């Protein structure tokens, strides 16, 4: 079956990416290690949004709120100079983001379409101004994490996230776990119901699905995963500021999944890497000299060009090449994608 070949090659692609990331530290310097850790965090963040936008058809424009809450929780819940246990700090930070997602989702999911986009933005701005304008998290200055969390058992430290290599591999493990979790989830009855809601919510209700609880569950899971990404980001940098909750970041993560290709988990992965690497490229003074300080312009043009030329995102590239080289028909945007998850 052709579908089997396709899903096998998709699986191979993702497995190769993860394997490449696993051996990358052998070749990387400290700058590269930090950069790729950051990109992997973005990839987790993008995957969380893909569950909402790509899989359920809910365009959330306030996703940075969960990212920021996860990051702030990691710092605020570990205030002293003694490292706290990863075993409770991680679930607590993820839980904080999930709780805000429950609150935000419960109210915003009563709206639809452009109203939903605006309401999620408004809730995210609320969270943004709480950390921006109150002394809770150091206001606009942000706040430092003095001691990074560790995981210890029987007096032995198993994971010390103060080590760049440890945070790198911990992030990679989280990325792999999130990817596998979402791939399995989207194939389950829950995931298929989300796909049905995306395709035609009215029909789903007529068939007997109460769609609101499904959407709310997806929203909370998505918020929790975004919180995980935020936690990793906060711990990696050891510093958080209100920009982590800003709408710029909500927009950036949306661009990542659009760039990579909506409706595919690997699109989120590819999109996060493409976005961050394009950003690095246009920021590079070695290439652009003084113009590098206008990197937003280059990045914006590159994104416009890729969206215009690749309507299915970067994941659509192989199909496009096949069409060009072999004259085979391209699988278009509205084309069949039953069971097309990873």
């Amino acid at each position, binding site marked *: 079956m052709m579908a089997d070949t396709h899903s096998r090659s998709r699986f191979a692609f993702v497995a190769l990416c993860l394997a490449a990331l696993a051996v990358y530290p052998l070749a990387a310097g400290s700058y590269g290690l930090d950069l790729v850790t950051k990109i992997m965090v973005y990839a987790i963040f993008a995957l969380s949004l893909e569950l909402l936008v790509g899989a359920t058809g809910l365009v959330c424009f306030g996703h940075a709120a969960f990212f920021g809450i996860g990051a702030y929780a990691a710092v605020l819940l570990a205030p002293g100079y003694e490292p706290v246990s990863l075993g409770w700090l991680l679930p607590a930070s993820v839980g904080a983001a999930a709780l805000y997602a429950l609150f935000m989702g419960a109210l915003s999911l009563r709206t639809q379409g452009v109203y939903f986009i605006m309401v999620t933005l408004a809730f995210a701005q609320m969270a943004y101004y709480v950390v921006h304008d109150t002394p809770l998290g150091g206001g606009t200055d942000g706040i430092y994490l003095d001691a990074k969390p560790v995981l210890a058992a029987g007096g032995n430290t198993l994971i010390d996230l103060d080590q760049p290599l440890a945070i790198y591999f911990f992030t990679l493990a989280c990325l792999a776990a999130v990817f596998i979790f979402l791939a399995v989830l989207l194939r389950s009855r829950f995931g*298929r119901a989300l796909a049905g809601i995306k395709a035609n919510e009215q029909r789903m209700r007529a068939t007997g699905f109460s769609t609101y609880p499904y959407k709310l569950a997806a929203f909370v899971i998505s918020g929790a995963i975004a919180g995980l990404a935020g936690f990793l980001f906060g711990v990696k940098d050891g510093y958080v500021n209100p920009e982590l909750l800003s709408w710029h970041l909500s927009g950036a993560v949306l661009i990542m999944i659009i760039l990579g290709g909506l409706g595919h988990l690997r699109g989120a992965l590819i999109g996060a890497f493409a976005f961050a690497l394009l950003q690095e490229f246009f920021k590079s003074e070695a290439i652009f000299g003084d113009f590098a300080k206008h990197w937003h312009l280059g990045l914006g043009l590159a994104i416009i060009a890729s969206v215009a030329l690749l309507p299915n995102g970067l994941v659509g590239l192989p199909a496009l090449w096949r069409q060009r080289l072999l004259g085979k028909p391209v699988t278009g945007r509205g084309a*069949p994608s039953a069971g097309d998850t990873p």
Partner: protein
Amino acid sequence: MTAAAEVLLRGTDISRRWGGLVAVNKVSLALARGTVHAVIGTNGAGKSTLINILSGEIPPSGGTVQLLGQDVTAWSQPKRARAGLGRSYQRNTIYPGFSVFENCRLAAQARTQKPWWWWQNAQHCPASTAAAHAAATRAGLDDQLDRPAGLLSHGQKRQLEIAMCLATAPEVLLLDEPLAGMGAEETERMLALLAELKSAHAILLVEHDMDAVFRIADTITVMVNGAVIASGSPDFVRNSHEVQAAYLGGH
């Protein structure tokens, strides 16, 4: 229709007002198992609004809906659907990106939702896959299972609409213009299917194809401007002066 016929869905004095417009005005009807009850009327007569009220998509301004003997007026649409009320739409509402089988399987899943079984592949749920196969076969789509639904012919898409209804194991079928846009051969196939489904279900049929309606319906209700002007057997309706004046154009 015998007096002993089992009434599965009953609407009593159903009204719906949109501001000053009365879209449905005190309509009552009873759907019995083993019968096809057709509702006819010109465009804008309130037929689709009536279906929307019966299925729970919009609440009535007045009146009650009883399903299998229970008052379901306050029930949401999904709850009514799970209780045995299936409906199809005037427009195609299939999921074009999914295969024919997946369309049916997802519909069947409504009966065994188990959303918390997140680790289990949806394709490995025997209950919903069996129901999907049965529904697709019944609707005559068993040779199209792997085809993307978006690539079906118009008639096949209408058949798929019915198959998706059947996959949810309904007692009552509310069918909104299932014959719309169909050719003669497709119409025949659909009528044969409806005649076959009739024995086990109560069917409400909203339809513009008068030949088909008079052939298959046991009871016909005629609506004009939201109100019922005649209701009875095809012969009764055919001979009714009110109906001839208002709708059939006097032939």
